[in-house]
């Protein structure tokens, strides 16, 4: 198995190197591509890692898109009130935690159909976010906030990187260690596989699942607030543009492993970065219709989902409520 992985990675790196060469030749600078790719990776990675924890414990929250949309809006509002992008990020995480907790409570205590509850969140956000935009700024369109509210980026020799991106990497590592090296992580995995056993052992199934739902929501909320405050510098109602579902694709791709989810997020982030780069690079943008460029992240996601799935194993109770016999 080991050598197979080595071969795969060699090929992957080789492809990346070749790709970078090619990009330089057609006039797309690979460094700026990587910069955008890392920015695009960040919300995906945060939400995907949170959802990995969630699903390991047996909950499936497909309302990540809703959390992105709502926390992006709430985050900007708090950033303006608190005059700081960091305040906005924290408010986003807190709002996401609340939404995650609400979803968890309905799933655990209401024994809800989680897919429908998650979709309910998404439909709710579709209406609530425009309503919120009008209520907060009296304008339904794009809302540009002062530039100093942006979370400052760190300069490195290779380009700029957001501290939130670094945080996302740390979070993925921490989630990996939590799941595989700690007692709590063992319990989280157990509650997804055999909730009866966890229950018999005297642990609270409901609290463990509420915990992962809340943490998952908080991470997605951080990612949502990052969209305007760490990346775009403006807010529109369609800001997340399906990224919540791309994060779900990362989770599926990763088979619920946080580190693999980080990798998947980087892959999809690069696809997103590639699309953004193509859309603005002179010489390229004239030749490719903008509409097709915009499709790239979704086509890549569709292709990856089609190629990977079917071979992943999920916890035995994922998506099903637990009821004592």
């Amino acid at each position, binding site marked *: 198995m080991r050598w197979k992985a080595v071969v795969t990675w060699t090929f992957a790196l080789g492809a990346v190197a070749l790709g970078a060469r090619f990009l330089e030749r057609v006039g797309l600078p690979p460094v700026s591509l990587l910069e955008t790719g890392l920015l695009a990776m960040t919300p995906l990675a945060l939400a995907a890692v949170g959802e990995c924890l969630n699903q390991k414990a047996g909950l499936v929250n*497909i309302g990540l898109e*809703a959390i992105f949309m709502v926390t992006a809006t709430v985050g900007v509002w708090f950033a303006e009130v608190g005059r700081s992008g960091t305040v906005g990020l924290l408010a986003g995480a807190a709002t996401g935690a609340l939404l995650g907790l609400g979803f968890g409570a*309905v799933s655990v205590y*209401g*024994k*809800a*159909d*989680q*897919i*429908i*509850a998650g*979709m*309910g*969140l*998404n*439909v*709710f*956000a*579709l*209406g*609530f976010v*425009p*309503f919120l935009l*009008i*209520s907060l700024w009296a304008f*339904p369109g794009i809302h540009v906030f002062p530039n100093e509210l942006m979370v400052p980026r760190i300069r490195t020799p290779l380009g700029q990187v957001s501290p939130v991106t670094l945080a996302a990497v740390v979070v993925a590592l921490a989630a990996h260690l939590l799941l595989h090296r700690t007692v709590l992580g063992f319990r989280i995995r157990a509650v997804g596989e055999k909730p009866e056993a966890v229950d018999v052992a005297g642990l609270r199934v409901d609290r463990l699942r509420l915990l992962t739902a809340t943490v998952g929501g908080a991470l997605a909320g951080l990612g949502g607030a990052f969209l305007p405050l760490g990346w775009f510098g403006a807010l529109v109602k369609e800001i997340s*543009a*399906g990224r919540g*579902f*791309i994060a*779900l*694709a990362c989770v*599926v791709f990763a088979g619920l492993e946080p580190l693999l989810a980080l990798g998947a997020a980087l892959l999809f982030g690069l696809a997103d970065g590639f699309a953004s780069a193509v859309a603005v690079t002179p010489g390229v943008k004239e030749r490719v*219709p903008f*509409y*097709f460029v*915009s*499709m790239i992240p*979704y*086509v890549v*996601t*569709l292709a990856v*989902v*089609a*190629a990977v*799935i*079917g071979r992943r194993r999920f916890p035995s109770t994922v998506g099903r409520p637990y009821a004592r016999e």
Partner: protein
Amino acid sequence: MRTPRALRPLAESLATVALGLVAGGVLVWAFGHSPLAAYRALAVGAFGTREDLLETLAFATPLMLTALTFAVGVRAGLFNIGAEGQMYLGAVGATFVAGMVPMPAGVHLAAATVAGMLAGAVWALTPAVLKAWRGAHEVISTIMCNWIALHLSMYLAIHFLAEPGRAERTVPALPTARYPVLSEESTLTAVLFVAVGFALVVYAYLWGTRAGYELRLAGENPEAARYAGVRPERVVVLSFVLGGLAAGLAGASQVIGRPPAWSLYATLGNVVTLGFDGIGVALVGRNHPVGGILAALLFGALAQGGRLMEYEVGVLSELVRALNGIIVFAMAVPELWGMLRRRLAR
């Protein structure tokens, strides 16, 4: 609190809608408006005059179809949330035939309708095939297809279907490809009957034929279906195609069955979110084609009444969509009313 057994689903659906209305009222109140004034305007806007009632029916037409898409998915054990994208393509297909391919009257209208339905069904094939043969989760694949459909449809609308000199919309449907307007004072057309008819046909198909029975069996008890020799791939494709036909018709209905534009806006403004709205409609209608028709009337009233609410009270009509989401969220809890009933009985 005793309701006869048969009426229980109806009572529960209505109670959930009421719950959604209360939650929406709290939202309205939290942002400094009067919920009573808002709901009064909403009710007047939806039912106030004959014209409003007809308009409510016009809003209900696409909703019963996108609800059908979701319902047929659920009946087959699938979570098809791709009505949105299938509907865009349906609108594009109908616009193309209705606006650019001249035909004799009668044939033209039918051809445009069928073109819309087929375009929707074809768009539904990608997630269907990925689900049936690759096991790709339909939630992710349908959403990705929705976004691809959005950009593809805008591209087609602007580059191939645009009306010369009017960048904001496509060519209008030729007069031979327009559903007759039922009343000059509203935008309701005869496409309503086609929508209701299609829902009834799907109902008859699902409950009256072998293939329909197999589809429902696969949704209710996949194990039993497998033992009975039902091929799961067939069920998946059938369910997606039926859903795609319905969604395509929904898209077509907004182009060839809705004055005054008779065309598709370049931003897809006259169709967006109708697909997602259908999810709540389907759930309130208990994932039944006939239930979907009834629920669509209710949501149509909310959509039509929402316009007056926005105009008179200043509460954005998008609130209706937030309300829809709350209703879906509440419908996810199967035990909600059961739990309540037990509490009350004690």
